[in-house]
């Protein structure tokens, strides 16, 4: 799936990836890829700035640790992030239901 198709939905997807527990940047990308059956596989390097933006917005919180001699930044969902995720879910379900209804197969009108 192309990155442009995710416009407006990336935040919700990243928040959902962190719902199960704290993850570092690469693991967030892997979780997103696994959760979508590989259909959403973003260039990993582009996930970090999106995570930083969510952190600035207070939706996730990051903390540094040392793993295998390397500094690692791990992110967790905040309370505000949990509420934002619920809102994203509700909005998406409403949107998806409306589009599904509009695009649903209809019988061709008879001409005779």
């Amino acid at each position, binding site marked *: 799936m192309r990155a442009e198709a995710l416009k407006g939905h990336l935040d919700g997807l990243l928040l959902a990836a962190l719902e199960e527990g704290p993850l*570092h*940047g*690469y693991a967030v*990308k892997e979780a997103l890829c696994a959760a979508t059956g590989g259909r959403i596989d973003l*260039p*990993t*390097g*582009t996930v*970090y*700035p*999106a995570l*930083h*933006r969510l952190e*600035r917005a207070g939706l996730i919180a990051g903390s540094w640790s040392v*793993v295998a001699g*390397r*500094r*690692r*930044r791990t992110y967790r969902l905040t309370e505000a992030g949990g509420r934002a995720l619920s809102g994203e879910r509700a909005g998406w379900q409403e949107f998806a239901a409306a589009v599904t209804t509009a695009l649903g197969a209809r019988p061709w009108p008879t001409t005779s």
Partner: protein
Amino acid sequence: MADHELIAQHLRALACRLPPQAVEEIADGLHETFEKYLAISGDPERAARAAIGEFGEVGLITAAFFRESPWRRAALTLLATGPLVGAAWGATLVAAHAWTWPVPLAVRMLYGTTLAVTVLALLLAARERRAYRRMRRATLAAALGLIALDVLMLIAIALLAPVPMWPMAIAIPASLIRILATLRWLPTALAR
């Protein structure tokens, strides 16, 4: 930190463009990706190329960071609102016959030069695509410049304007809002 020269090169190229903490975070992920592919292929060269391919080229990563940068957004906001605040002050100065004020020529020239440099710094920050630090410095300089210009204009109006006039009702609050918003935003941005 990296186990292959290609990975090290990639990180060096990113380090020239992005903040150190961002590069450190990317390095951890890139290293983990490299290890994943190394376990699959057993070939360090192939693993390094696959890891870089999965992460994205330097230009792609840098562009994503610049798009999301609070410094760039601040520069764009100041550029967008600048002409409105400037127009309000322009109307105020015309209405107050500012050319008759006893302000030394050197002060006028200094104000004009600071204004021009500030606008140039904002344009530079908004157009910068290669060096995050340069964009950050340009936005910071412009933000401080605008605070100084706003404060100077408020002092000038308080001391030299003969009587209150209607354009001041727009110009003064606009400058105060810009000063307060910038002062509120700056410490948070500098702390990151």
